[in-house]
């Protein structure tokens, strides 16, 4: 399998050995490919595929805001008198 990379080693896609893939790229064995996809590898570092948190600080903040908004919204619904079951039915648990 061929891993298409960017200039920083970030994995951009997996392709067959018969595919035409532009540099930068690295060709790996099927076993190495399987190991890489099993860990949801997203970067090639020191000749190994790794899984790193590649989110930007802004993306991380957005994710955290979403979690906080969900919890505050859940609490507001409960403050209005809804039971846990009713809240879960509305927004999930």
């Amino acid at each position, binding site marked *: 399998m061929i891993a298409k990379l960017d200039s920083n080693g970030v994995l951009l896609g997996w392709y067959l050995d018969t595919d035409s893939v532009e540099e930068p790229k690295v060709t790996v064995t*099927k076993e190495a490919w399987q190991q890489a996809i099993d860990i949801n590898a997203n970067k090639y570092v020191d000749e190994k595929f790794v899984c790193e948190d*590649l*989110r930007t600080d802004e993306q991380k903040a957005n994710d955290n805001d979403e979690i906080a908004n969900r919890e505050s919204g859940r609490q507001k619904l409960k403050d209005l008198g809804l039971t846990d079951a009713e809240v879960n039915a509305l927004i999930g648990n």
Partner: protein
Amino acid sequence: MAGIILTGDTSGEITISAPAVAGTNTLTLPAETGNILTDGSALPAIDGSALTGISGVVTASSIGTSNNSNGYILFDNTLLINWVRKSSASTQTITFPLAFTNYYGVYHGTETAGGAYLRIHSLSTTSVTVGSGGANVTGWVLAFGRKT
């Protein structure tokens, strides 16, 4: 029963025989060195590309020993299906095991009972970015498209 008897160098013999009602037939041996298979022989490894009469050829990635293995299946009509696991509770970009030429859509589900669900943030020929709603959960994404 008419036949030809071939005697072994060390012991025994093999009888090549014709059926009782033989008709008029010709059995031509191949002009090459090799062994003849019988109905008791194990089949040798066969090059699948030489087979005909198969309705569809499927190329599939091997399934790993872990139940959590990602993978793909590619049909000879170019239909490609990828499956990947959202292994992180937070939003995650997952590279497909084999890139699509064109993607059509995804199906997704959580590994957690209850009202939580996965949300597809973005989808491309090479990856999917997936988060969750209701709670931070893991799950699976099944994506389909074509690879030409």
